[in-house]
């Protein structure tokens, strides 16, 4: 990171002091309380964790090229999918957009000099790093084989792997989420610039607010659950232990009470990013602002009462199953409202297809597929058939990768000029967006078919008749992998060679574009702006004033 700052400083085009060149050296980064620098610290950390999770995924797809398993013993394969799941969910997706773009953008978007508690913000990052180290230790010491769900009694009594280290990592990283959410809630409530009313806030802020609510309500429950799991493993007796009258299903209830809302922790920030991208590249105010804003809150609230749909076949009561099924259908409504409003925004808009917009359009399509197949799974009768198959795997990857990761990349591409002050090569960026879209669909669409045909998830071997689809999926994964490497290359390239971006290369609306230079100064604004406009006031602007 410090090399980045040095390079930017050398450019004669930018003699101005900004947050990247205000101070130098490793100390100035490790002890920073600047929300923008902390966002970049998170970006570097989660990119590294993404790499680990991606390697595990690549090894899984290699293994599944052949029906009898091309690479390793089933015991090792179990570790691959567990590490992939744990790292990607808890150490990449959950912090991805909130901790990077959220940290960077929230104060800029609402017209504040920093988040409400800058030191707490830095502490969150250190907690996250500590959690990452625990997880990396668990991996290097031999791995975990419980799956990312840690179901008891396997995880508490029978697994001989490093469950406690992994659970401790998630526990600690969870406190990072809690403190980040707390910081965001207070910042959004108390730090808005004069005139920045709730209904003038960019929709990204609304979605970050909803995400923060889930952070502070959901994360403590997984924390206490993993604490109980760890104690039970240490003491060989605990509240999930059937020998003393404990019920292993209680673990699943507690786990999913967090982990279902966690799905929305992953997708809500993505929805927020898309709500920024679509108006910016359609040159239109978003259609139905209020509906989009409140649908974020509705999703956050309903997400807490649908966890039982993960347990339709575990023996929970039929009536509980019925109610959870109905509630799961309900949560589709606010999600659909968002999709309809985005498409209505596109209607008669002056659309241009820059790289961020390609990711946004990709998101809408893939998220819709992921969401609709979620309704299949929310139906009791269908779920009995496809539960525990690749259908489920395909469904949630359409949401988490097709949705959350696409939105994350779209957001990074959109705000990269603001973050670094540099432009990246647009042609390469569009090429990467297409590569990712094609690679993604080739990887995961066959898995819908596999699941429907009955191939169970989490097995290292499979009947030969499934090989065709598995090879297709592995081929897609290799394309997807290339698609992820390309942006990594040209974004790093742009740090040194990219042309200066100027304050607002997209001609977008919002305080971060209109009132702050790129990169912004340490205290964000020369003077705190006074807001007199609605968000997305694109009336009167047309075409794209960029590049």
């Amino acid at each position: 990171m410090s090399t980045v700052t040095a390079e930017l400083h050398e450019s004669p085009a930018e003699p101005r002091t900004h947050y990247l060149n205000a101070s130098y050296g490793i100390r100035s980064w490790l002890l920073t309380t600047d929300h923008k620098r902390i966002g970049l610290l998170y970006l570097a950390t989660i990119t590294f964790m993404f790499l680990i999770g991606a390697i595990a995924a690549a090894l899984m797809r290699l293994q599944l090229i052949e029906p009898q398993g091309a690479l390793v013993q089933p015991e090792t394969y179990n570790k691959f999918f567990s590490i992939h799941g744990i790292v990607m969910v808890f150490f990449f997706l959950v912090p991805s957009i909130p901790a990077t773009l959220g940290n960077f953008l929230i104060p800029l978007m609402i017209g504040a000099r920093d988040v409400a508690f800058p030191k707490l913000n830095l502490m969150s990052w250190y907690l996250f790093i500590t959690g990452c180290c625990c997880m990396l230790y668990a991996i290097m010491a031999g791995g975990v084989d419980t799956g990312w769900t840690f179901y008891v009694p396997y995880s508490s009594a029978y697994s001989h792997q490093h469950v406690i280290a992994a659970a401790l990592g998630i526990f600690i990283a969870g406190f990072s989420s809690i403190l980040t959410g707390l910081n965001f809630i207070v910042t959004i409530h108390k730090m808005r610039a004069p005139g920045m009313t709730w209904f003038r806030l960019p929709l990204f802020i609304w979605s970050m607010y909803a995400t923060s609510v889930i952070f502070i309500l959901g994360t403590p429950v997984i924390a206490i659950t993993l604490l109980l799991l760890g104690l039970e493993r240490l003491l060989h007796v605990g509240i999930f232990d059937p020998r003393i009258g404990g019920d292993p299903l209680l673990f699943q209830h507690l786990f999913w009470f967090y982990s279902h809302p966690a799905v929305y922790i992953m997708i809500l920030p993505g929805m927020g990013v898309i709500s920024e991208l679509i108006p910016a590249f359609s040159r239109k105010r978003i259609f139905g602002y209020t509906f989009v804003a409140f649908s974020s809150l509705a999703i956050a609230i309903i997400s807490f009462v649908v966890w039982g749909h993960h347990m339709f076949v575990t023996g929970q009561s039929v009536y509980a199953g019925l109610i959870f099924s109905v509630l799961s259908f309900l949560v589709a409504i606010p999600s659909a409202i968002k999709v309809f409003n985005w498409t209505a925004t596109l209607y008669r808009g002056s659309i241009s297809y820059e790289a961020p917009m390609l990711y946004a359009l990709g998101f809408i399509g893939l998220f819709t597929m992921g969401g609709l197949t979620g309704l299949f799974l929310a139906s009791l009768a269908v779920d009995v058939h496809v539960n525990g198959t690749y259908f489920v795997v395909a469904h949630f990857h359409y949401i988490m990768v097709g949705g959350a990761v696409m939105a994350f990349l779209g957001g990074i591409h959109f705000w990269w000029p603001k973050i670094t002050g540099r432009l990246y090569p647009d042609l390469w960026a569009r090429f990467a967006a297409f590569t990712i879209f094609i690679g993604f669909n080739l990887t995961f669409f066959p898995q819908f078919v596999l699941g429907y045909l009955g191939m169970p998830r989490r097995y290292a071997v499979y009947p030969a008749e499934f090989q065709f689809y598995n090879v297709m999926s592995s081929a897609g994964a290799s394309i997807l992998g290339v698609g992820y490497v390309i942006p990594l290359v040209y974004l790093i390239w742009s740090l040194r060679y990219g042309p200066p971006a100027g304050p607002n290369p997209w001609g977008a609306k919002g305080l971060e574009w209109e009132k702050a230079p790129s990169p912004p100064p340490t205290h964000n604004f020369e003077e705190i702006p006074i807001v007199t406009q609605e968000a997305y006031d694109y009336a009167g602007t047309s075409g794209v004033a960029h590049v």
Partner: protein
Amino acid sequence: MPAQAGWRMSEAATHEANPTGLAHQFEDIEQQREASSLGMWAFLVTEIMFFGGLFASYTIYRALHYSAFEWGSRNILEVKWGATNTAILICSSLTMAMAIRSAQVGKKKATTIIYLLVTMLFGAAFLFIKLYFEWRQDWIDGFVPGLHWVFTSAHPSTVEPGVQMFMCFYFFMTGLHALHMVVGLGLLTVLVIMAARGRFTSQYWAPLEISGLYWHFVDIVWIFLFPLLYLIGGRYH
């Protein structure tokens, strides 16, 4: 929302070290106080969810193994110690509130410090009773699941597994609560140092207020733990 003129404060001014405890990202002390107060309330919400997982599990298991829980409560826990500790904690909440009040109305700093020290004394007394008279005795009697569990034939074997479950909850819940008490004592120590340095004025007392919120919260958790653990056995002497 603070006056708009205040928002235009130059960047240099926001950088100045501020003797009143105002951090650079805030415009005025009132905004800062509101932010820290809201932050603590949000934190307490997470604490409620943290303990909530345990309370929910306790409720389910108490319904499943009612007689065992009742037996454990009656024969292992001692109401007199639970009641004493309840009284101690309520008193400590009172002295905490007095400490905040004394700073708000601008009393001498010694007054605030004394109230804080008395609060700490109550907190320490609670922990001492818990540790010495209760947990230590449980260890001697062999009522610690997983570490030292000796359930003799004198006890009814039908409830044995459920009693072990009850004691798991007892140690998890009171242990987690005690951990929060220890954190609270740490916070109070910091407050005493701050008060001794004369940091608190009738304008600036936010750290006292938010630590007070935390202290009262820990108190309230105990107010729920006491009946759930000690009183369900129905032996009140």
